[in-house]
């Protein structure tokens, strides 16, 4: 009997208590039920997509055959990639500057850099709309230059996130490593490349992931800065929903979810989840 008796629950063994299990279950349902419904109904053989009418994959074919939708997706990915790259460079430089140097107005600059995180998106959107109108930003450029306005707007709200993540990582940097590298003959540039970048690498990966996903799913700011021919994926989905919610929208969204999950997975795998967790 004793062989199969369960050990009594230890004081801190919360994962074995009933109320904690119920709570965790409720959180999971709350978080993921809508997404599961969205994915399941992408296979629904019903145009109105309200009740389940049988399994089909035809809406995936339809979504992939929808030239406008595919173009919007390509636009979104292009913008996200450009915004991520630019945010990484700008964000890292800003973080290193604020960490490493003392200069006049440092406090003010420090504060204003994170402003785009705090300011409501709608305000940023309107601001960008007025700004691009005021400077007379051309709207008739060829691809990919027609994405310029959106990309600039995305960089503005993405790079402060990179700065934040990189700065918190820099706080744990042992300055003696920098001195050790110099002592061994390294120049400032070599110290940056060989010692500082490897140290902040997990933060760069985390920052890039943040920037990429923020840019990819942004609707409000993009809506205000997109020209007539530069539609992005979220904006396109919104306009499709306005007519009717067909499983095509579900299929397209499911594809996007899978894409982000795969990208995140690759990034985490490449870096090691532990190292990224360390940055937070």
């Amino acid at each position, binding site marked *: 009997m004793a062989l199969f008796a369960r050990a009594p629950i230890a004081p801190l063994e919360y994962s074995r208590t009933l109320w904690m299990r119920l709570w965790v279950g409720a959180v999971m349902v709350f978080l993921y039920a809508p997404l599961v419904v969205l994915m399941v109904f992408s296979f629904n053989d019903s145009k109105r997509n309200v009740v389940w009418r049988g399994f089909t994959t035809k809406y995936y074919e339809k979504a992939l055959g929808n030239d406008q939708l595919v173009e919007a997706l390509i636009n979104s990915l292009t913008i996200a990639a450009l915004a991520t790259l630019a945010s990484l460079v700008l964000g890292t430089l800003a973080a290193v500057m604020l960490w490493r140097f003392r200069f006049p107005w440092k406090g003010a600059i420090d504060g204003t850099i994170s402003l785009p995180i705090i300011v409501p998106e709608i305000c940023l959107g309107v601001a960008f709309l007025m700004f691009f109108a005021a400077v007379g930003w051309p709207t008739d450029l060829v691809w990919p230059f027609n994405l310029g306005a959106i990309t600039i707007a995305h960089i503005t709200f993405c790079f402060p996130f990179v700065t934040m993540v990189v700065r918190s990582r820099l706080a744990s940097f*042992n300055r*003696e*490593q920098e*001195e*050790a*590298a*110099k*002592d*061994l*003959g*390294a*120049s400032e540039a*070599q110290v940056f490349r*060989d*010692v500082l970048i*490897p*140290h902040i*690498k997990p933060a760069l990966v985390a920052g890039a992931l943040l920037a990429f996903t923020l840019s990819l799913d942004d609707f409000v700011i993009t809506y205000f800065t997109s020209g007539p021919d530069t539609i992005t994926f979220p904006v396109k989905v919104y306009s499709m929903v306005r007519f009717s919610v067909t499983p095509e929208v579900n299929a397209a969204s499911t594809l996007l979810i899978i894409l982000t999950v795969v990208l995140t997975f690759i990034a985490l795998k490449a870096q090691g989840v532990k190292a990224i967790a360390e940055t937070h």
Partner: protein
Amino acid sequence: MTEPAKPIIQIQNVSKRFGKVTAVDNVSLDINAGEFFVLLGPSGCGKTTLLRMIAGFELPTEGRILIDGQDMAGIPPNKRPVNMVFQSYAVFPHMSVADNVAYGLKIAGVKGAEIKARVAEALELVKLGGFGERMPDQMSGGQRQRVALARSLVMRPKVLLLDEPLSALDAKLRAQMQFELSELQEKVGITFVTVTHDQDEALSMACRIGVINKGEVAQLATPSDLYEYPANRFVADFVGSVNIFEGKLTLDEPDKAAVDCPGVGKIYLNHGVTGPHGADVWVALRPEKIYLHVPGEGKAVKAAAQDAPDGYNFARGKIKGMSYLGDITLFEIELDGGARIRVSRPNLSRHDQEDFTWDDRVSMHWRADSPVVLLG
């Protein structure tokens, strides 16, 4: 050393001020080629600042530093012929041990095959042969320190600087590393300059010690001279344990002297002091140089001492404190004159500590060449 000492580092009237704080105050000293030099002092005395100025991480406010005859003014740390082992070791965590050691050579543009050979040689030197592929987080603190040592030694610097090299190690490992560092230094023949606040470390490793206090050199001497002939009260007190009594110089002849210390009595010396008669001086007396008599033994010694009054000092008192430390026992004794004196006594037999207890009246004596008279 057979060849005449030749200075490899010359520090000439160097001062360093941070704002209003003077960290290093007009220091001049020469460090000889091939010696193991230790900068010893309490924390905040400026010894690390001095070391960092040699490495080039701090610039002197005044004065100049020459390495191998060359003025280092305007030469950045990455161009100086010295290498440093940092207090935190600063091993690069993302590089393997071999890559860490190879880093400086790669920067210097040394060829691949030579790098490999020199890295292997350096790792062998610090007893880490075969550890090249390990990552630093797979190694203990002591091993990481060896990596830092190899990484500096592989550059074949003219001088190796070590900042508190043993402070992060536990007591046993520290004792072992003290020995190994001295051995390594003899083997490679490179000048070592070490900073430490630990007197044991300094005494056991150094050829010469520079004691630094409040940014100034308090004394520059070999370990035994520093301990036996301290130049001032700071050095006497900082290096080892000591009784210091204030008194007046009442007798000062070429072959004998006496200092009258209130609370103790007259302390006799068997050599002259060459201080002004009646001047205020201090007498330093090490606890282990005082012989504490087992009760009953004192009378015979006193009789012997009275036959040769210049040869011995004799005193009586009461035991006020005892601490048994295993190898020795420390006594705190209140002398009949009122002063307190610390005496240490080796436990030569297993029962030695049983001969004494609190409030025992005891007598003690010390040789006339044991006290040191300090003028400052």
